Structure formats: C-alpha cells, structure tokens
C-alpha cells in the first residue's frame, strides 16, 4: 500500500471533467484506489464518489493505492494532479 498527499493547483478545482478523468485513469489499474479528504473516504474508481469531493484550488487530498500495480497507478494519477489536471 502506498499513500501520498496532493494539492489541487488548477484555478477551477476538482470539477466534473477532472473527476471523470481521474476515474477513467484509475479504471486502467487493478489496484484499489481511495481518496481521503476532510474525514471522507471515497473510492477513487467511483465517479459519483469523486463528484462529491468539493476540492477548490489550494485544498489537499490524500490518495491511497493498494494492489499489484499500486506504484504505476500512483505515478499516473499523481502526475495528473501535479499537471493541474492539464488546465494550467
């Protein structure tokens, strides 16, 4: 199991489009993927779950990956966060 904290850096925050992209990316890996924020734990492969996260610019989330391809999954998804959801 690997965990990492990431910040939201794009201006619009975690809105519908990045939420959908995160879920699509996560679906490509076998590992379980959880997102923790403000006491909520959300399954990162669930679009409706990710849509409940109100994450504005500057807020941070903890991502947790668990499974045989956990490192690859983490690299891919963290990369997407670090690129500001390709909206910078």
């Amino acid at each position: 199991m690997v965990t990492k904290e990431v910040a939201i850096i794009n201006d619009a925050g975690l809105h519908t489009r990045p939420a959908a992209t995160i879920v699509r990316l996560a679906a490509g890996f076998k590992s379980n993927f959880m997102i923790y924020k403000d006491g909520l734990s959300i399954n990162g492969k669930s679009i409706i779950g990710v849509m409940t996260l109100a994450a504005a610019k500057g807020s941070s989330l903890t991502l947790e990956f668990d499974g045989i391809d956990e490192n690859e999954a983490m690299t891919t998804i963290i990369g997407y966060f670090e690129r500001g959801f390709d909206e910078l």
Partner: protein
Amino acid sequence: MKETENFNIKSGIAAAPGLTIARAYIFSKEKEVVNDSFIVDPDEAIRDLEEALEKSRKELEKVLAVTIDILGKNRGEIFEAQIMILDDPFLIGNIKKRIAEEKRNPEFTVDTEFSKYQKIMARSEQPYMKERILDIEDIKNRIIKNIRKKKWVSRLSNDIIVISEFLTPADTVLFLKNNVQGYVTNSGGLTSHAAILARSLNIPAVVGLHNATTIIKNDDLIILDGSHGQVIINPDQNTLEKYNKKITRLQAYGEDLKKLRDEPAITLDGRHVKLMANLDLNEEFHFITENGAEGIGLVRTEQIFQGDDTFPSEEVQTAAYRKLAEMTYPNRVIIRAFDVGGDKMLPVDLKEPNPFLGWRGIRFLLDNPGLLKTQTRAVLRAAVFSNISFMIPMVSSFREIIAFKSIVNECENELRNEGKEFYEGIKLGIMIEVPSAAVMAKEFAAEVNFVSIGTNDLIQYLLAVDRGNDIISDQYQEFHPSVVRSLAHIIKEAKSNEQSFVSICGEMAADPLAVPLLVGLGLDSLSVSASAIPNIKKIIRSLKYSETIELASKCLECKREKEIRDEMRRFFMEKFPDIYEELFST
C-alpha cells in the same frame, strides 16, 4: 388596462425574447415517490435494474448527441458524467449487493444509495454543488422511472409551451424534437440553464413565475411574451385576436428590417454609427450575422467559457478567439478580459461583504497575473487576423491601465522569443464603468485606442443604487440627468484625444427610445444584443445627426429623469410615429 381584468396575466422574468401563442404542457418534475417494500425475487429485481440502467444510457446518449450537435462538445460534459454514473462499479455494485441482501425493491435501494451522495454534496459551501445535486437528482429519477418502465417524457403533441417547476439542460434540449414554442418556469433567473439555452436556441421564455405550474393547466391556451416577461392564460377572443395581429405585424416588420441587413447604420446626413453585437455564447454567433451587426463590440469571455466551469487553457482560448475573428472578418471583435467577481463566478470560494465594491474585473486579474497572461497571450495569438481588439473591465485608476499595458508588452516579448506568430499592432481598450474612470476619461483614454462605456455598472455606481434591491430599484434611473451628463463628459473628454473611439455597451443602448439621444451625444458605436440591431439600424437610418445633437443639448439641461424621458419620447413620436405605435403600444 380595463380589459385585462377578465383574464390571467402573470409576470415573470423576461428570459428569452419573442412572442408566441400555443397550448400549455405541464412538465412535472415531481420527485418519484419511493416506498420501502420487500420483494420476493431479488434476481428479477436486479434484472429490472440492469434494464433500467441500459434504457437510461440509451436516453442519455441521445441527449448527449443532440447537445453536442446543437451546442458543442463542452456542454455535453455533464451528460458524459451522468452516463459514467450508470457504469460506476462501486455505486451500482453496492445497489445490487443491497438488493440481494436486504431484499428491498430496487427503486428504494437506488433512491437511498444516491441520496447518500447528495447529502454529502449538500454539506459543501461550493456554489456549483447545488447544481450538481440537481444533476444527480436528474439521473436518479431517470433510473427510478425506468425501473417502473415509465416513459421519461410522456407522449405529447408538438408546438407546445413547456410549463415546469424548473428545467434541466437535458429537459430543455429534449423538447426541441417536439418543436417547443416556449418555456415557462417557476424558478430560475436570467442565468439559469434553461434561460441561457432558450436564448441561444431563440425560443421565447419567461422564468421565475413562481406558481406557473399551479395556475396553468395542461392544454390551457397561452400567450407567451418573452420580451416583456408576460404570460397570458386562456385569453378571451379579443385579446387573442389582438396578439395574433401583433405577431403578424411583428413578422412583417421583421421582414422589413431584414432588408436593411447589409446596409450600414448611417444617418440621413451621413454620420456612421457602428452597430455591433454583444456575444455571451458562441452559439449566438449566427444571430450576429443574421441581424447585420458590424462586428462584435463585447465578447463576455467569462460567459462563453462558462460551460467549462474552469478557466480555459491558452490553446483552447486561442482557438476560440481565432474562430470568432475569422468568422467576423473584416469586421472587428472586441474581446473583454474575464470579468469575474461582483455577481459573476469566482474560481475561489470567497465571500466578500460587498462584492460589487470588491475584488472584481481588472483588480482580480492583476492579482492573478497568470490568468491574465494566459488570456492576453491567447488574444495576441488569435489576432493574426488583425481585427481583434482587447479591453479590460472595471478600470478605476491609471495604475491599472499601465500595469495592463506592461503585461501585454511582456506577453508580446515572450511570444516573440518563443517564435510564435502573433499580431504586433493590437488595439487596446478600457471599459469605463466606474465613476472615477468617467471623471478621468481624458487621461485614461489617452493611454489606449478606444473606450467602451459599460452603462449597467456605471449607473449603479453613479447613483449608489443596487438594481437587484427591490426596495430601491425604482431609483435605478437609466436616464438620471447625472448619467446623461456623465456620458457627455466621457465622450467629450475621451475624444479630445484624436485617435479615440468611444462606444457604449449596456442595456440602455438597446432601448430604441434612447438611440437618438445616444447618437446625439456623439458615440461612435453602440454594442447591443444582436436581436436589437435591426430596429436600431432602422431608427439611425431615418435620423439626422444634427437633430439628435439638438435633442442631446436639451437633455443636458434637464434636472429630472422624467424631463429627459419626456424629451426622448416627444422626439421619437414625432420622427417615428409608426415604430412608436408598434413597439410601445400593447
């Protein structure tokens, strides 16, 4: 109006213009009532659920295709997300597991499972979460109705006026296939989904008519006047005839105006006043050409990208502006930098005690230079057609203009170093909508190529009247003598710099009665919503500039708004008795 006593005239918010008469169709958005009951065969229930999910998917794919077709790819995103929800392994897996274990009916299980997420969303203070809860409600109800094998929209005839509590984007698009004639909703404002879509689809709409769904019944005959925000329910024969005649006259008048489409707005004595259009939505573009605008005087960029709910990248913006420039060429396109704050969306969750006097317009942009630079670079790169101009909103001090110009300079240098193609001679402008800028018009205008007077804000700042405040809204006087004198001051001062071009954008410019006065004050251009252009063009082409100058000097002597309105009306009735009759008599 004595004759109106017999029927039901209701007023709401005029959300999309046009006059139409048709039968009402009450579109009930009532929540499906879901009872908790036990079932015998969970396998059958799960099969019902799967069928309902499949049917919902087919329906949404249809909506998605229609939306992309009519409104473009970005506006389809919400439906793509809804389709993904139907496939959500965690959500759907949980629902199936609970049906199997708890042996409760599938509607109940769907309802409770979705509601969990809605409850979490309701805890958020982010404004867009309210809209998102409705989106989730929409998909939840769709699945429940499909489990019950109900048709989402019951069979209905064509040419209807849809009456509803509120409308989601999916509803608004779906009724198009029934050749919907108009929309009336209980709730919603000018910026609600339904209102924006109705305007871009050119379908008359009245929103915010609180009890529309209770006072109007199915098949009631409705006169819907989207230009005045009025709905007449079951009119008597006289009224009906009157409105039928009015529709015929308006059509004939419209045909008449169409003939002027390719003519410029030039007065009888040769003064050319450029008539440009305001653009809020890319989908409105064809109305701009159809109505014969000489370019776009105001592109509200925060609006055209609103469907994205994010600030768009440089590439996305470059492509969007370039397309506008190409389509408008050789006419001019004036792009206004993002005007956020006030009542417009801010990307951060911020509550200001007094947003209209707060962090908005150029103030916000200069504090977020990354955002302004991205937009500036996009505008410069799109300007290879050389017909693009760029202006900034809410300027209140000289320092802001200098800072803006230095950012433009910086972006030009960057692009040059990167070897990217851009236009070197872009024309820059400022909005004058704050009294301090009005007072300083001469010095401010000397720094830029053009100024555009934004009357909506200028009036509310000048009079210290919040137009949205019911208690004092009667004191929001568009033709308050101080407003007219300020306009005269701004135009005279700005024009003391030879190169200056002065235009006006704001609702008062679209008022036909005001046109002669505005022309007489010496404006070079009026920028209004596209639909108002043909009428204004006809008025300008029937005027003498010299007469309007006289009118303006009379108005500049007045002490009360009423005196100014009387002057304008007298002038108009003398020159255009026919148009006056057509537009202002009911």
